């Protein structure tokens, strides 16, 4: 019966798909481990840098820096969007882009124009499809972002901020909270704001010798902080992408398994029906002759 052959074919195809999705799941798991290590490796640097800045902000009172300047008169902002180059990762890109769209619409409603810098092929093609303008597209970062790749992007955006072209810089990416939880966020990077800790300095405060002076040191530390924050957005996004792919591929493998079970059942039933029908034919024929 033709039906049986069709079922066998479909089952075979589903098995192949399951093989592929399972492999992709394993690859994503391995990549996740590596990306996670990388993301964690940047934490000591960031933590130390932030602590230094806090200490300096206390030492240098009346702190002012071009990167901290709040501009109310410039109705232009920049948004850096981090998406992935590859698909098959569930709602990963869609979730980020939904946040982006919300943010853009919100800013537009307030009369603020936003120049979007897009990272990742998926976001680029989405914007193209929706006919939204992109100020800049960053290519080739892939799923293992390196600091030297992020640095020029960060420097370019900081320069635009410094020259007063933009009044703020936000970054949209999938924040990695834990292996079980990632949320799409839009975070403000510029203008930087460090609240000088109010009141007394905490006990046990070390009196540092600063070279050069606190204000000048801070002037060097703040751009470094911006760079590393952006870098962390990239590493976080890379980890989240792998998690999303892992989950999506696990779901696909499970779905394929269910389908194989169902197809097997249908096949067995079809086979049984055919056997019964043939038997009935034979018995009917024998009875007719008797």
């Amino acid at each position, binding site marked *: 019966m033709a039906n049986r052959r069709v079922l066998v074919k479909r089952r075979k195809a589903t098995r192949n798909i399951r093989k592929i999705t399972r492999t992709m799941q394993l690859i994503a798991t391995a990549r996740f481990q590596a990306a996670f290590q*990388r993301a964690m*490796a940047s934490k000591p640097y960031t933590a*130390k840098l932030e602590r*230094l800045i806090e200490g300096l902000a206390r030492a240098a009172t009346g702190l002012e820096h071009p990167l901290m300047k709040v501009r109310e008169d410039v109705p232009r902002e920049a948004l850096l969007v981090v998406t992935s180059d590859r698909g098959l990762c569930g709602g990963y890109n869609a979730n980020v882009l939904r946040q982006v769209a919300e943010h853009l619409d919100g800013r537009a409603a307030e009369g603020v124009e936003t120049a979007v810098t897009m990272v990742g092929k998926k976001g680029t093609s989405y914007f193209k499809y929706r006919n939204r303008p992109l100020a800049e597209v960053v290519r080739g970062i892939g799923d293992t972002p390196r600091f030297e790749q992020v640095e020029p992007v960060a420097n370019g955006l900081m320069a635009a901020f410094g020259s007063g072209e933009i009044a703020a810089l936000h970054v949209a990416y999938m924040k990695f909270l834990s292996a079980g939880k990632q949320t799409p966020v839009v975070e403000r990077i510029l203008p930087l704001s460090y609240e000088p800790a109010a009141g007394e300095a905490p006990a046990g405060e070390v009196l*540092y010798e*600063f070279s050069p002076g606190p204000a000048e040191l801070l002037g*060097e530390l703040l751009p470094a902080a911006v*760079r590393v924050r952006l870098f962390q957005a990239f590493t976080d996004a890379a980890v989240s992408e792998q998690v999303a792919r892992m989950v999506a591929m696990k779901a696909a493998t499970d779905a394929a398994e269910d389908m194989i079970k169902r197809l097997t059942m249908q096949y067995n039933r079809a086979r049984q029906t055919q056997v019964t029908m043939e038997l009935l034919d034979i018995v009917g024929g024998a009875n007719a002759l008797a």
Partner: protein
Amino acid sequence: MAEAKTFELAVVTPEAAVLDTEATFVALPAHDGEIGILRDRAPLVVKLDVGLLRAETAAGAIRLYVDGGFAEMVGNRLTVLTEDARDPAALDRGAAERRLAEARAMTAGDEAAHAAREKALRRARVQLKLTAG
């Protein structure tokens, strides 16, 4: 040998912890010249220049190229924050030469561009010096 007067030395970049070891002496490429650090030095935060970090450890001398950044010495722990740190042997002479040419070609229109050019020039020159024989 008398008990060695060591302190901790950590070099971290945004990508990795490059070094975490005990050292008896460290020379840092500070922004205003090389600065030597021994155990029990007073707390210090210093800006670094592109250059060579030298450290004396129990396992021998360490040489490390650092791409600017900062160093903090406190409580006998010296932390070096830099955006790039690597073995000078891992530097690519060809790439450094190319970078020097690129830096020379940069235009110094305003103050920021001038500073960027100077920095690029300095980085390329230091890399060239470190890769020379």
